[in-house]
C-alpha cells in the first residue's frame, strides 16, 4: 500500500513537473529578476540621475512644480525617491469635465535635486519581468489564471517531490558531480531540499496573493455573493471630501512627513497624495513605503488637512487575518530586504529555477537512455528536448536581447518600450526555431555560448552607448548601475562555463579516470 502511494506520487511529480516545468521555469526566472526591478529600471533609464537627497527637499520641489503647472488639478500624486528608486515622479489628475467622470492623468519625472523635468527613454524596465511573471503577457485575466494554475501545480510538485525522494535527510549533504544522470538527480535533490523553505514559501504565498482567484467560494459565501464588498473591506479607500469651491492656500507639505513619522513606529512615507489642492477641503494622504517591516500592510496611511495640518484619518491597526495574509505578501515581494538580503532572495530564486531546470533535464535523460543504442529518438522525446532547450537557454537569450534592445534601439523611436518587449519575444521565438533545427547538444552549446557572449558584453555595450560605464558608476558610487553591469558580466562568465562543460561532456572520453564512469545521458542526445 505504502509503495503504491509513493509510486503514485512519483508519477504525479514526474508528469506535473514536465507539463508545467517549461512555464514554471520562465515564471521563476523572471520573478527572480523582478527582485531587482528597480535596479534594472535604473540601468534601462540612464537619463534619470541617481542622487540621494533628503525626502523633505524632494517633496518641496515637487510641491513648487505642481503649484506652477497643475494648480487646478483635482489630485496630485507624488512618488518620493527611495533608497532603490532614484526618480521623483509627480502625477496629476485634471478636474473632470462632468461630475462622475474620471479626469485625465499626466505624469512627469523630476530631478530630485534641481526640480527640473527629466525625460527618461521609453521603456518598461524591470517592471516588464515583474508583470510577465504573473501575467505572462496575456490579456487579463487569462495570464493570471494560467500563472495561478502553474503555482498550484508547483505546490503539488513540491509536496509529491518530498514524498517521492524519501531519502531527503539521509542524503542531505550529498552532491556527486561528474556522474552523468546521477549528478543531475543529486543536484535536483540538493537544491530542492536545501532551499525547500523558500520553495514552499514562494509557492504558497503566490496562492495567498491570488486567493480571490483561487478560492472565491469562501468569499462569496461570507459576503453573500457581493465580491465588491469584500474588496472594500480589504482596501478601505480614503473617503475624500468634495471640492468646497473656496480657494485656500495649501500648507507646505514637507513638515507633514515628520508628523506622519510620529504616527508610525518606523519607516516613512513613500507616496504623498493631495486631494483638491488649493481648496478649503484639501486633504493630504501620506502612504507608508512599507520597507521597514516584513508584514505588508495594504494602504497604510495617515491623512491630514491640507489647510490646517490637522490629522483627519489614520488606517486602523491590522487585524490578525490581514496580518497573516500581509506577511505572506511581504515575504513573497521582499520589499523590506536590504541589499544583502535582496541578493540572498535572488540566489534563492535562482535555486528554485535551477531545481525546475534540472528536473526537466532528468525527465528527458531517463527516457533517452532507453534509446541510447539505436540513437533515434521518438517524436515526443524530440519535442521535449526542443522545448527544454528553448525554454531554458532560449529564455536566457531573450532576457539578454531585452537589455540589448534597450541600448541599441534609437532613443526617440516610436513605441520604443513595445519594441524592447518585441525583441524579447522575437529572440525567444528564434531560439525555438534554432533548437528545432539543430537539436541536442549542439543546440545547447550554441545557445549557451550566445547567451554568454550577449551577457558578458553588456558592460561594454553600456560603456559604448552611455556615459555610465563601470569606471564612472563605481567612482560615483552608483551601485545599482555598477551592480547591473557586474551581474551581467558574472552571468556571462557562468553561461560560458556552462557552454564549455556541455561541449566537453559531449566529446568522447579520453582520460583514464573518465573512462570508468557510466555513460552520461547527454551523449545519447545526438
Amino acid at each position, binding site marked *: 500500500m505504502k509503495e503504491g502511494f509513493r509510486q503514485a506520487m512519483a508519477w504525479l511529480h514526474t508528469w506535473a513537473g514536465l507539463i508545467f516545468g517549461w512555464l514554471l521555469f520562465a515564471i521563476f526566472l523572471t520573478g527572480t529578476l523582478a527582485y531587482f526591478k528597480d535596479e534594472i529600471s535604473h540601468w534601462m533609464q540612464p537619463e534619470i540621475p541617481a542622487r540621494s537627497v533628503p525626502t523633505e527637499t524632494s517633496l518641496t520641489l515637487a510641491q513648487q512644480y505642481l503649484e506652477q503647472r497643475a494648480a487646478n488639478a483635482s489630485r496630485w500624486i507624488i512618488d518620493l525617491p527611495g533608497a532603490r528608486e532614484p526618480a521623483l515622479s509627480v502625477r496629476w489628475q485634471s478636474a473632470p469635465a462632468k461630475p462622475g467622470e474620471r479626469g485625465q492623468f499626466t505624469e512627469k519625472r523630476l530631478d530630485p535635486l534641481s526640480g527640473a523635468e527629466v525625460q527618461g527613454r521609453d521603456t518598461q524596465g524591470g517592471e516588464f519581468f515583474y508583470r510577465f511573471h504573473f501575467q505572462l503577457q496575456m490579456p487579463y485575466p487569462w495570464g493570471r489564471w494560467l500563472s495561478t494554475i502553474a503555482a498550484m501545480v508547483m505546490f503539488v510538485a513540491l509536496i509529491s517531490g518530498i514524498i517521492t525522494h524519501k531519502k531527503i535527510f539521509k542524503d*542531505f*549533504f550529498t*552532491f556527486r558531480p561528474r556522474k552523468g544522470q546521477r549528478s543531475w538527480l543529486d543536484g535536483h535533490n540538493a537544491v530542492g531540499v536545501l*532551499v525547500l*523553505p523558500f520553495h514552499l514559501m514562494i509557492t504558497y504565498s503566490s496562492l495567498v496573493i491570488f486567493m480571490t482567484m483561487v478560492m472565491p467560494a469562501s468569499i462569496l459565501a461570507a459576503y453573500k455573493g457581493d465580491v465588491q464588498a469584500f474588496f472594500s473591506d480589504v482596501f478601505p479607500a480614503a473617503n475624500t471630501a468634495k471640492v468646497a469651491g473656496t480657494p485656500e492656500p495649501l500648507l507646505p507639505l514637507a513638515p507633514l512627513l515628520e508628523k506622519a513619522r510620529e504616527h508610525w513606529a518606523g519607516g516613512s512615507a513613500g507616496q504623498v497624495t493631495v486631494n483638491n489642492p488649493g481648496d478649503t477641503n484639501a486633504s493630504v494622504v501620506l502612504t507608508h513605503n512599507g520597507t521597514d517591516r*516584513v*508584514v505588508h500592510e495594504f494602504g497604510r496611511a495617515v491623512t491630514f488637512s491640507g489647510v490646517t495640518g490637522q490629522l483627519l484619518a489614520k488606517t486602523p491597526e491590522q487585524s490578525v487575518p490581514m496580518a497573516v495574509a500581509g506577511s505572506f505578501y511581504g515575504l513573497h515581494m521582499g520589499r523590506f530586504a536590504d541589499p544583502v*538580503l535582496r541578493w540572498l*532572495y535572488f540566489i534563492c530564486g535562482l535555486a528554485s529555477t535551477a531545481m525546475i531546470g534540472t528536473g526537466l533535464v532528468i525527465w528527458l535523460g531517463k527516457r533517452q537512455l532507453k534509446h541510447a543504442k539505436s540513437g533515434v529518438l521518438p517524436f515526443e522525446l524530440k519535442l521535449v528536448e526542443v522545448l527544454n532547450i528553448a525554454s531554458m537557454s532560449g529564455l536566457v537569450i531573450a532576457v539578454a536581447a531585452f537589455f540589448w534592445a534597450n541600448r541599441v534601439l534609437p532613443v526617440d523611436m516610436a513605441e520604443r518600450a513595445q519594441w524592447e518587449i518585441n525583441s524579447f519575444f522575437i529572440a525567444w521565438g528564434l531560439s525555438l526555431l534554432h533548437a528545432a533545427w539543430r537539436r541536442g547538444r549542439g543546440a545547447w552549446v550554441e545557445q549557451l555560448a550566445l547567451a554568454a557572449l550577449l551577457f558578458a558584453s553588456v558592460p561594454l555595450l553600456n560603456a559604448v552607448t552611455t556615459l555610465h560605464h563601470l569606471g564612472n558608476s563605481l567612482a560615483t558610487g552608483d551601485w545599482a548601475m555598477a551592480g547591473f553591469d557586474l551581474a551581467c558580466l558574472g552571468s556571462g562568465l557562468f553561461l560560458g562555463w556552462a557552454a564549455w562543460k556541455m561541449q566537453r561532456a559531449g566529446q568522447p572520453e579520453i582520460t583514464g579516470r573518465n573512462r570508468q564512469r557510466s555513460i552520461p545521458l547527454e551523449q545519447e542526445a545526438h
Partner: protein
Amino acid sequence: MLLAGLLCYGGFTGLCLSMDRHHAELLGRKASIAERRWFKWAGWLLLGMSLWAAVSVAGWAFGLVQWCAVLMLSALLLVMLMPYRRRMALSLAALSLLASPIAAYAVL
C-alpha cells in the same frame, strides 16, 4: 546576519561530520560513535545559537527571515563546495568558528 551565517555554516559542517559517509569523505577516516555524537551535538548547538544571534540582532520578524536565508544558503554553499574543494569547505568552517566571537563582539 553575518554572525548567524558563520554559525550556520559551522553548524552544518558539524552535522555533516556526524554522518559516517561524509566524515570519511572529509577527514579520510572512520568516525567513532562518540565522535559522531559529539559532532551532532555541536552542530545542532551552533544552529540553535545562530537562530538566537539572528533574532537578538534584528528582532523576530527580520531575524527569522534573515536566519532562514542564511540557513538555506550556508547549507547550499557547503554542499556545493564539498565535492570540488574539500579542504576549503573544512577550513571555511574553522574560519567561521574563529571569526564568530569577533562578529558577536561587534554586533551584540
